[in-house]
C-alpha cells in the first residue's frame, strides 16, 4: 500500500518540469516576491495574472536567472539549479523566453536573429539550422521576411520572429512576458494565435498577460498574484466565473469596468 502511494508521488514529481520553491526577491527595501511556490508540469500552460507591479513579471525573470533571488529554490527536471554557481547559459537553452518589446537584434536579419542561438550556443550546423529556421518562419507566416531587418517589420511580425527565435533552441518550457503589451490591438491576435497553436501542440508554457480572454482560452491553470504573493490559483473556468478571494474578484471587476468605458468610446 505504502509502496504504491510512494510510486504515485514519485510519478507526480517526475512530471514536474519546473518548480519554484519559496522564492523571495527583494528590490532594495521592497519585497517583490514573498515566498512564492509554483509547480509547472510537463505540457501544462500556466497563466500568471495580477495588477501591475504585483511581481508576476519578476517571477518569470527569476525563473531563467535574469533576476537574482534572495532565497528559495528553482528546480528544473528534478535538479536544483539555484544551488552553487548556476550555469545559466545552459539552463536558458531549456527555458526559452519572449519579451514584451521583442528585443530582436537590430543589426541582424530575421534569419540571422533566429539562427544565432543554435549556431553559436548549441554549435549546430548552420545549413541544417537555417532549414529549420525557414520551416518555423513559414509556420508563423514570415518566411518571405527572412532577409528583412527588424526595423522593417511591424510589432506583431517582430514578436512572431522573437517566438521563433526562442522555439528553435527546442526549449523544454517557454516563458512569455506580456508579449502583446507593446502591440497595436489589431496585431495582438496574430501573436496570440501562434501561442495558442503552441499550447495545442503540448508545449509547456508560463505566460504573463493582461489579455483575459486569451488567458481563459490558453490556460490550464490561472495563477493570480498580488503584492508578491500567490493569492489564488485555479482552472480558468472556475477562476473567471467564481473567484475564491475578494482580491481576485476586485481585480476581475476592473476589467469589466474597462470594457464598459471601451464600449462607450466606440
Amino acid at each position: 500500500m505504502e509502496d504504491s502511494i510512494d510510486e504515485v508521488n514519485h510519478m507526480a514529481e517526475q512530471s514536474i518540469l519546473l518548480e519554484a520553491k519559496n522564492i523571495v526577491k527583494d528590490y532594495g527595501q521592497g519585497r517583490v516576491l514573498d515566498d512564492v511556490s509554483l509547480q509547472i508540469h510537463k505540457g501544462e500552460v500556466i497563466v500568471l495574472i495580477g495588477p501591475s507591479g504585483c511581481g508576476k513579471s519578476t517571477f518569470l525573470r527569476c525563473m531563467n536567472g535574469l533576476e537574482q533571488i534572495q532565497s528559495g529554490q528553482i528546480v528544473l527536471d528534478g535538479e536544483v539549479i539555484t544551488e552553487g554557481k548556476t550555469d545559466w547559459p545552459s539552463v536558458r537553452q531549456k527555458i526559452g523566453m519572449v519579451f514584451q518589446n521583442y528585443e530582436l537584434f537590430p543589426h541582424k536579419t530575421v534569419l540571422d536573429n533566429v539562427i544565432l542561438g543554435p549556431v553559436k550556443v548549441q554549435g549546430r550546423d548552420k545549413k541544417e539550422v537555417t532549414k529549420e529556421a525557414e520551416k518555423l518562419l513559414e509556420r508563423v507566416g514570415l518566411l518571405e521576411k527572412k532577409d528583412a531587418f527588424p526595423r522593417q517589420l511591424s510589432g506583431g511580425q517582430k514578436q512572431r520572429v522573437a517566438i521563433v527565435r526562442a522555439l528553435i533552441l527546442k526549449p523544454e518550457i517557454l516563458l512569455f512576458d506580456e508579449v502583446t503589451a507593446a502591440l497595436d490591438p489589431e496585431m495582438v491576435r496574430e501573436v496570440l494565435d501562434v501561442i495558442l497553436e503552441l499550447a495545442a501542440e503540448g508545449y509547456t508554457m508560463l505566460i504573463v498577460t493582461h489579455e483575459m480572454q486569451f488567458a481563459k482560452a490558453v490556460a490550464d491553470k490561472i495563477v493570480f498574484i498580488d503584492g508578491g504573493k500567490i493569492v489564488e490559483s485555479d482552472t480558468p473556468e472556475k477562476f473567471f466565473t467564481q473567484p475564491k478571494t475578494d482580491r481576485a474578484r476586485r481585480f476581475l471587476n476592473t476589467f469589466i469596468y474597462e470594457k464598459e468605458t471601451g464600449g462607450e468610446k466606440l
Partner: protein
Amino acid sequence: MQNLGIRVLFMGNNFARLLGGLWITIRISLIAVALSIVFGILLGMLMTVKNPITKALTKIYLEFIRIMPQLVLLFLVFFGLTKSFGINLSGEVSAVIVFTLWGTAEMGDLVRGALISIPKHQYESGAAIGLTKWQVYCYIIIPQILARLVPLAINLTTRMIKTTSLVALIGVVEVLKVAQQIIEANRYTVPDSALWIYGTIFFLYFFACWPISLVAKRLEKKWKTA
C-alpha cells in the same frame, strides 16, 4: 617669379620630402587609432563593470590622460623611460605609445557611452537564448556600437593627425620637421620661404583630414537612418 618663396618647394626633392613627412604623420596616427579602437573597446567594457575598484582605476586613468598635455606625455615616455629604465624607444614608437594611451582613453569613454546607450533588454534577450556574457558582447553589443563608433573613431583620427605635429619635438622627422629643415636650409637664399612652405603644409593637412571628415559625415548620415 624666381624670387618667390614657392620655388623652394620645387628645389631638389623638397616636395617629396614633405610628402614623406606627411606619411610618417599619418602612419603614426593610423597605427595609434587602430590600437586605440581595440584597447578602447576593452577599456569601455571595463568602465561599465560595477566593481568599484575597476571603476576607480579606469577613472583615474581617464582623468590622468586627459589632464596631461600630450607633449608632457611624449617627453615622459621618450625621455623619462630612457633615463630611468634604460628603455630606448625610437621617437616614432614613443609617439605611437603616447597617442595610443591618449586614444584609448578617448575611445574608452566613447565606448562606455555607446555601451550604456544599448538597452538593457538587448543584453537580456541575448542571455535568454543561452549566450554567455562574452558571446553577448561579441555578437550583439559590439556590432551595434561599432556602427555608432566609426564616425567618432574617424573624428579622433583627424584630431590625432593634427596633434602629431608635436612629435617633431622628440625628434621624429614628420611633415612639420621636414618643413623646418627646408626653411632652415634656404634661410639666406629664400628668406620668405617660411610662408610658402607652411602654407603648403596647411594644404597638406587639409587634404589629409578633409576626406576623412567627409567619410565620417557620410557614415554618420547613413547609420542615423539605419
